[in-house]
């Protein structure tokens, strides 16, 4: 008997046949569902023998047996084969636990995105009917198990790539309720539910909510924080609240694994920070660019769910289109597949998800790509099986092959990550789903074919892949033919000589040999049989992969980022004209020594010691410029303009360290920026002072220890004068109403402060109480004298001080009142005429206020103008005859005072922070350029280094363009060149797009 007709083959064949006969699922317990017909209960006992069983990522059993019964695993290894087991020969085959996906919406209804926003009518409360909470984006009451239903088509496509179990939830809203763990069995809903409530889900995306609030990322964050507090408060069932099913559900869900979807690496940190505040460790569904900030990801201590939707190469054939694709997008294309390897290397726990893939069929290819980029195969398998199961505490059910667990496993032709491996079967809850039949029997090899009458012998060779072998007739001239195997039936056809008629045969692949009938070349019936003589000589080959060539990471991930973050060093700036902003005034030919990030000494001929010496001859050294009113480096919305009071939102939560404007502003001598909420509402959000430490993360950018501030606004923006005719509902619509908003807010704050124990903690009022207690300070957007006067009165009534009026273009009319109150001013040099309330703005404003005794700063509110604040300051020399030294203070010392950081920055004085700018010329001249901009003694901008960076950008772009062109040539699918747009904000901007953002942060991409 030839090797081919071994019993192994026969048995495995049997298995194929039986597969089709199975019906129902394996559960013997009494059911409530009546049976129509004759009951057909089966235990479904199977024994898979001679297999290579990969129990989990680290345990592989050779020649092992897997026994299953009633949909569960009975034994793995060398347990006995029960008598009533159907035995399946899996010689040469591999058995793996099937995959688990924690981030799925399988079987849940599709979610409609909200069409609401700036152009629709305002909606202040939730539109959800029922005893639920006030905000439509908080949907804790949603229980995915109650909306779940089996979806045969999707189940099949997930099974076909190896999944057996998914955690499904309705992907809609900021709090999304609970997820349900289900298998992908094609069975009644009741049978496939593994865990009804397996997880709770969150995101920053308000989804289908048509309610205005929140309209920004910082609003989403504030809403989450407030809801944590509300839920805690609700535990005492406060009578005033009545029944709130949303908060009730929130509390009930608290003990489940909490999964947070992040849209960006910084989002992961933002989510984690919320978690830290409320004692929750989120599992983070990553976005795919976390590799750019691995140390920060480690610090979250979170586990991650990593997507595999790596970007396609960009079609950069058209150079004029490619110009608009940023280097960071190109680099992300190249580096995205390194994500999992980077996580493994950093020991961050993670699993994979197929969500985000355009086509789930790409799953294994994407995992292989991760392996190619450094991920170990063991970890890759773990990330698809046991790791996700553990994360949601379902590893007692799924994730590995252990007795008692669900019989969810894969049968494959080889190791799972080999690209030639065929996934034959995916068993779910003990039920077989055939993924691919072809190749289960590996028929490849040499055969002797006998044709009768005549007893003519041919040698034929079946080669190619196991699934679709190809036939060759071996003789003097090898001739190609065809072979088709369909279950038990086979057919063969091949010519006997080149170009000649074909011999056509069909028959049965029997247990011992292939036999059948056919027609010879002359059309006469023949009988045939084929016997296996030798196995295929060549084993499966995989083309060897060379390690991919990839570029370096940049910090930030931007063309101008660092390859290694800069370190502090001592610096001696020699022989410069030093504008001290102190009583010493302007010192010629003077040295400044910087040690440990601080100004150590100012004098002549200072010894350098170990310090790096920078020649300042002919140059001017000033304190770094401080932009008191900036909107750079902010993610997804500068305004939470959906309500008139949003003191709960914080710019601190949405600082974006990747913004190239940080670098651009360093090139204009800016060293610190006060990031303000916009001016869409009367009491806006809390602001954040940052130092422009290019490359640092959001926390490191923050100016440590600085006093907290908050943005207020008055006038046309807050009364929505220029927002179009639909926006006429939000209170206030007049300056009269603005006063009432303020008075009401502070009255509530005062009462809140007095309220005793058990009060609902209110983040909005907390911030206002801080103002009342002189612990938080106001920067108020304002224009006309009446409103300025009004706010001063409100402040006097409530006994707090307005720290800064910003814009304040009519400040010159009430400078005496401002001075008396103790308010400072941050203004523009010469803006006017763009709207009604700036009709009396004059370029002498700063001068008058300053001469009356108000502390005045010039600020930008504009990412471009911020690069020229020295020039804006200089306009006060032109218009108001200000001295040069006083003019310089408008953008250095004076804003430092406004921000209460003049003890650290704003002048050149021993002991202060070494935030310095070395100018090529008199800093008030339009011809002056910042040659070096230094923060904490670190040179963050250097005009010479900048030239090198331009070279590097050009080289790196070219390298990646060539690489992507190569991919396109190879036939890799590409994505269209997409213009990378920057996120840019003004609080004043009245352009349509910007306005849309005022209420519709959600529409951003």
């Amino acid at each position, binding site marked *: 008997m030839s090797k081919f007709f071994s019993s192994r083959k026969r048995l495995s064949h049997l298995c194929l046949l039986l597969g089709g006969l199975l019906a129902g699922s394996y559960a013997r317990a009494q059911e409530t569902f009546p049976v129509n017909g004759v009951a057909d209960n089966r235990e479904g006992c199977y024994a898979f023998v001679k297999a290579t069983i990969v129990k989990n990522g680290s345990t592989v059993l050779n020649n092992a047996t897997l026994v299953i019964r009633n949909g569960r695993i009975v034994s793995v290894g060398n347990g006995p084969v029960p008598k009533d087991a159907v035995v399946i020969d899996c010689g040469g085959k591999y058995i793996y636990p099937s995959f688990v996906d924690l981030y799925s919406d399988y079987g849940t209804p599709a979610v409609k995105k909200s069409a609401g926003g700036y152009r629709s009518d305002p909606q202040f409360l939730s539109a959800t009917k029922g005893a639920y909470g006030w905000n439509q984006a908080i949907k804790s009451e949603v229980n995915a198990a109650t909306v779940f239903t089996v979806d045969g088509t999707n189940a099949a496509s997930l099974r076909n790539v190896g999944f057996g179990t998914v955690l499904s939830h309705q992907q809609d809203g900021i709090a999304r309720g609970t997820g349900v763990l289900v298998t992908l069995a094609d069975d009644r809903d009741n049978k496939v539910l593994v865990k009804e409530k397996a997880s709770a889900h969150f995101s920053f995306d308000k989804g289908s909510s048509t309610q205005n609030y929140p309209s920004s990322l910082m609003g989403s964050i504030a809403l989450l924080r407030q809801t944590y507090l509300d839920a805690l408060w609700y535990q005492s069932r406060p009578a005033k609240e009545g029944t709130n099913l949303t908060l009730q559900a929130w509390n009930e869900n608290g003990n489940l694994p909490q999964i947070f979807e992040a849209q960006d690496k910084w989002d992961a940190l933002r989510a984690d920070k919320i978690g830290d505040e409320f004692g929750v460790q989120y599992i983070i569904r990553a976005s795919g660019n976390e590799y750019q900030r691995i140390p920060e990801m480690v610090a979250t201590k979170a586990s991650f769910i990593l997507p595999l939707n790596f970007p396609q190469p960009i079609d950069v054939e058209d150079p004029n289109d490619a110009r608009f694709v940023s280097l960071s997008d190109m680099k992300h294309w190249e580096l995205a597949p390194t994500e999992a390897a980077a996580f493994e290397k950093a020991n961050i726990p993670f699993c994979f998800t197929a969500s985000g893939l355009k086509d789930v069929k790409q799953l294994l290819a994407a995992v292989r790509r991760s392996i190619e980029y450094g991920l170990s195969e063991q970890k890759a398998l773990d990330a698809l099986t046991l790791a996700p199961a553990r994360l949601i505490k379902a590893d007692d059910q799924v994730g590995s092959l252990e007795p008692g667990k669900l019989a969810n496993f894969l049968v494959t032709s080889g190791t799972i990550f080999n690209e030639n491996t065929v996934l034959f079967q995916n068993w779910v809850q003990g039920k077989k789903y055939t993924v691919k039949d072809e190749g289960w029997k590996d028929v490849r090899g040499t055969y002797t074919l006998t044709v009768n009458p005549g007893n003519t012998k041919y040698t034929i060779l079946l080669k190619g892949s196991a699934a679709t072998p190809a036939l060759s007739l071996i003789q003097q001239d090898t001739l190609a033919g065809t072979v088709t195997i369909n279950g038990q039936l086979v057919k063969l056809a091949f010519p006997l000589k080149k170009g000649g008629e074909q011999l056509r045969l069909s028959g049965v692949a029997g247990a011992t040999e292939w036999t059948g009938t056919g027609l010879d070349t002359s059309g006469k019936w023949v009988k045939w049989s084929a016997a296996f003589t030798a196995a295929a000589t060549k084993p499966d080959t995989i083309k060897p992969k060379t390690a991919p060539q990839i570029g370096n990471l940049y910090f930030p991930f931007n063309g101008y980022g660092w390859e290694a973050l800069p370190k502090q060093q001592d610096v001696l700036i020699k022989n410069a004209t030093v504008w001290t902003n102190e009583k010493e005034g302007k010192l010629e030919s003077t040295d400044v020594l910087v040690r440990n990030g601080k100004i150590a000494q100012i004098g002549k001929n200072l010894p350098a010691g170990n310090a790096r010496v920078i020649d300042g001859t002919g140059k001017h050294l000033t304190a770094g410029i401080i932009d008191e009113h900036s909107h750079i480096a902010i993610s997804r919305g500068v305004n939470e303009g959906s309500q008139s009071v949003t003191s709960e939102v914080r710019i601190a939560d949405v600082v974006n360290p990747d913004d190239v*404007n940080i670098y651009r502003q360093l090139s204009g001598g800016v060293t610190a920026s006060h990031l303000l909420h916009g001016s869409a509402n009367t009491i806006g959000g809390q602001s954040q002072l940052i130092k422009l430490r290019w490359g640092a993360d959001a926390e490191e950018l923050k100016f440590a220890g600085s006093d907290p501030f908050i943005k207020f606004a008055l006038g046309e923006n807050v009364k929505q004068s220029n927002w179009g005719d639909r926006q006429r509902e939000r209170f206030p619509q007049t300056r009269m109403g603005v006063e009432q908003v303020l008075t009401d807010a502070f009255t509530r704050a005062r009462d809140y402060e007095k309220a005793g124990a058990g009060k609902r903690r209110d983040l909005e009022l907390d911030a206002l109480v801080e103002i009342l207690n002189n612990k938080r300070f106001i920067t108020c957007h304002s224009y006309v004298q009446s409103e300025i006067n009004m706010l001063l009165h409100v402040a006097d009534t409530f006994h707090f001080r307005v720290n800064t009026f910003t814009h304040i273009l009519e400040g010159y009319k009430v400078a005496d009142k401002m001075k008396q109150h103790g308010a400072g001013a941050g203004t523009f040099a010469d803006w*006017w005429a763009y709207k009604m309330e700036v009709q009396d703005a*004059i370029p002498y404003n700063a001068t008058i206020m300053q001469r009356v005794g108000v502390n005045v700063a010039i600020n930008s509110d504009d990412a471009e103008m911020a690069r020229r604040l020295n020039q804006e300051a200089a306009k006060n020399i*032109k218009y108001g005859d200000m001295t040069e030294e006083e003019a310089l203070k408008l953008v250095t010392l004076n804003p430092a005072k406004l921000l209460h950081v003049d003890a650290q920055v704003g002048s050149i004085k021993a002991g202060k922070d070494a935030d310095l700018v070395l100018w090529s010329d008199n800093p008030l001249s339009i*011809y002056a350029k910042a040659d070096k901009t230094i923060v904490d003694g670190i040179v963050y901008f250097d005009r010479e280094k900048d030239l090198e960076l331009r070279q590097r950008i050009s080289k790196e772009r070219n390298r990646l363009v060539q690489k992507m062109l190569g991919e396109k040539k190879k036939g890799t699918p590409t994505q269209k060149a997409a213009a990378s747009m920057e996120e840019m904000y003004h609080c004043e901007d009245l352009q349509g797009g910007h306005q849309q953002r005022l209420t519709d942060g959600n529409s951003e991409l």
Partner: protein
Amino acid sequence: MAQETIYPAPPQGKTVYLINGVIHAGNGQVFQTGSLVFTNGKITAVGNNLPAPSADGIIIDLHGKHVYPGVIAPLSSLGLTEVEAVRSTNDFSEVGEINPSVRSLVAYNTDSKVINTLRSNGILLAQVTPEGGMIPGSSSVVQLDAWNWEDAAYKKDGAIHFYMPSLLPPPSLPGRFPITKDRAEEFAEKTGKVRAFLSEAKAYYQEDKRSEVNLKFEAVRKLFTKEQKLFIHCNLVKEMLVAVDFAKEFGIDVVIAGGADSWIIADVLKQNNIAVVLGQPHSLPVTADDDVDQPYKTAAQLQQAGVLFCLSNEGFWQQRNLPFEAGTASAYGLSKEEALTAVTLNAAKILGVDKTTGSLETGKDANIVISTGDLLDMRSSVVTQAFIQGREINLDNKHKQLYERYKHKYGLK
């Protein structure tokens, strides 16, 4: 005193002799201790060592002050809007896509309070330019000291404007935007419409006899005689290449307005004699990877390539900072005199008014600015006197008046 009492100046009477000034002629020439003479509104002499002034003239000893040609502000909505956010004050944008017969000049409001704030910074002429749709109409050059638009007109309807649809979506929302086929199609369709319009207009212009008059075709007649120019507003390379092609196809004078990426194809522009009105240098780079100072140095790159260009600040009130835009262009590569030329003589050439203004040369209108220091640097630019067509204009404005009012309130000097 009020804005209303800032009267337009009467015609020049006596001959004026400016002596001992640093004269920046606008054409690159500088006379260090120069003199300049003008009579009946025209410059009669300029240079060093001029003959002694006659006794019946007005002699102004400048003691080293700087003298400049009046700055020209191209592409401005000056006088067409007063309060940008208040719709009723806006007269720069008409309904419709192709409106070449619409004339900005007739809506130019000589009593706009913005005008005087420009004059006091040395801007003496402006190209009053319509917006909206694709061809919003014609622009005219006005001088900024007039009782009404008729008096103000310096060159009527000298340019037709075409705002080319952009190949890039407006940067209104952050994130990534595909350069979609749709946009390319829309671009092709829209530019196609304008191309078809010009083709028909050109054909119309060939034939004198007709039964019906088409005002839109009539309005662009002078494009084909080159008495008018077509200003094509666009910024990206592909858009500009299409603009260049328009010039070739129709045999007309094309000027590129905007031209943010013009530095990339400066040689092409030079080769085809296409002039550029460069949008404000005080802009952010077009892409994140661009040199951080790219917009600052684009002017110098055009200069080096030999492209005829001038600078614009666009907008209306913003134009008072136009000299400083030139200052920045100088900080980043232009010489100071080249930078001056970029807001004076080059602008005059591009707007077709260089026969009468743009530089301090004999025979030209006496459009003159006198400053205590460098006009292009806010650190030193203080305009003390200015003349339009020889008439000494009042440099007061609403802002100065409010300054005085509140100095008075606080007892400041």
